[in-house]
């Protein structure tokens, strides 16, 4: 990576126009290659290490065994069921996190009267481990799905919350001044000035919050669930079924990744990238 490889916004806009169809086609083929060679290499290394049996195969199964397990579990419907169940919990937790963290983060950044009393409480709550809340979660919400969602919620609000706040305090004050001089109502200032101006932070926070809502699924689902990907992984672990553990991990990885690509990359493309606020 040299300084020359460093993309500059404008340079990307108007590259040489003389690309031939052949070149474009080659590019089209090269693209996935450029992105996936390292992943392929990692899988190959994994395969080689696994078949060498340095480690017991039930702890480090070969990729092929994992794929086979994925296929079997898909065929039996076990995987799909658990995906559906976990997705429901994770998405509910994520949606609640966003619904809470976005407005609260905006207020933290925006209003001193709100920030001064609320921030210390949040900063104190933040470092407390999610698992430490389990007894109280059960006390308040019982052992149903509510507690699982509470743990997901309480673990995943933070990146969006604090990123939104940081985004808002980093807004160039001139935008607020311009909004005020144009007689913008508070609500429109929120929605049309503050939020878009802080969007690079908010989108990064959304990504992190989304990822976190998956990351805590094992911890949340061993709370009291007999279903879901987290339970599936824990259960497989107890039975020393390494291939099922890794199959579960890969399923979560893919679910997270696909959403990341389709939702967040898209959101970024139609907002901050289009506006030139991010490369």
């Amino acid at each position, binding site marked *: 990576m040299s300084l020359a490889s460093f993309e500059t916004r404008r340079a990307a806009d108007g590259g040489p126009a003389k690309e031939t169809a052949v070149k474009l086609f080659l590019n089209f083929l090269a693209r996935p290659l450029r992105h996936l060679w390292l992943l392929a290499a990692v899988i190959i290394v994994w395969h080689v290490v696994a078949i060498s049996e340095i*480690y*017991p*195969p*039930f*702890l480090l199964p070969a990729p092929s065994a994992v794929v086979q397990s994925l296929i079997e579990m898909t065929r039996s419907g076990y995987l799909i069921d658990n995906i559906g169940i976990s997705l429901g919990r994770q998405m509910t937790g994520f949606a609640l996190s966003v619904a809470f963290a976005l407005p609260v983060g905006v207020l933290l950044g925006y209003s001193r009267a709100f920030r001064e009393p609320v921030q210390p409480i949040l900063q104190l709550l933040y470092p407390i481990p999610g698992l430490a809340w*389990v*007894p109280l979660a*059960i*006390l308040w919400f*019982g*052992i*149903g799905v509510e507690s699982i969602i509470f743990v997901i919620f309480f673990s995943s609000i933070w990146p969006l919350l604090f990123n939104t706040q940081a985004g808002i305090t980093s807004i160039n004050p001139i935008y607020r001044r311009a909004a005020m001089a144009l007689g913008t109502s508070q609500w429109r200032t929120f929605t049309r000035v503050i939020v878009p101006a802080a969007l690079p932070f908010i989108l990064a926070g959304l990504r992190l919050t989304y990822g976190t809502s998956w990351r805590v699924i094992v911890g949340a689902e*061993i*709370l*009291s*669930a*007999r279903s879901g990907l987290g339970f599936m992984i*824990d*259960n497989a*672990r*107890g*039975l*020393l*079924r390494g291939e099922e553990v890794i199959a579960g991990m890969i399923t979560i990885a893919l679910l997270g990744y696909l959403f990341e690509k389709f939702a967040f990359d898209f959101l970024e493309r139609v907002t901050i990238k289009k506006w030139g606020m991010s490369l």
Partner: protein
Amino acid sequence: APTVTVVSGRLGWPHCMPFIATEMKLWEKYGLSVDHRDLGNGSAAAEAMASGSASFGYINVPNAVTLLQVGLPIKILAATTIGGTSVYTFSEAIKSVADLKGKKVAIPRGVTTHALQFEMYVLPQAGLSKADVEIVPLAPTDNLTAMRRGDVDAAVSFDPYVSQAVALGAKVIVPPNKMWDGPAYSAVVAARADFVAKEPETVRKLVQVHCEVIKFINEDPKKAAEIVNKLLRGTEKDLALQLDSMRSLTFTAKIEPAAVARFADAMVKFGLIKSAPDLGPVVDTSFLPKDVM
């Protein structure tokens, strides 16, 4: 001598022996250098042995069977405790297992003997099947809260949680001795087969220490309870609880291969494993001192 890593589960009576041995410096007495690690759950102990981080450990029977089933040669060398599991409730309406029909019952999560005992023995004894009750996997620490809220009606658990609950007014509807047909081992002493083959003398000493601790516990339960209570930072009240807990258990190193095999069969029936491993050559009582067998 090179240091031996010994793993166990969390400090509770079934896994107490290495804790007490360390506390009483029994390893040193036998010329052993032992690094004892207690892990948060049974899976971790099994994984530690499978990965070679530890060659000797205190693990649950289902974990031992699973290790064998996935192909890790181990030897089961001794028992630790028998019993300990009970079913209890706070509900007035539930007087016997039969009353659990349609009720929610909390069971320790993971692959445990507790679930096997309850579902494969206790329920059928009362003419019920798995489908007749709603099983809720739950950490034993959360039982009290869940029961208070009415989220579960009864719980299958072990000590000190049962004694804790009883102290708060729960009643035991299935005592430990009615939980299984024959000796129900809470945990066993196991070692990797390669380790046993390579260092039989070390293994013999480790098992001797184990047996000496069990002898000590049986001879002076109060002293043993004090040691455990001190390690747990318990109070006077907790000490009483520990002593209560000990009454529900039999401390013994003696192990019957057939009883272990029955668990393996139950696991197959339960659907946890496809076929039971041959336990014949696995349960190796040759390291136990003569007076124990």
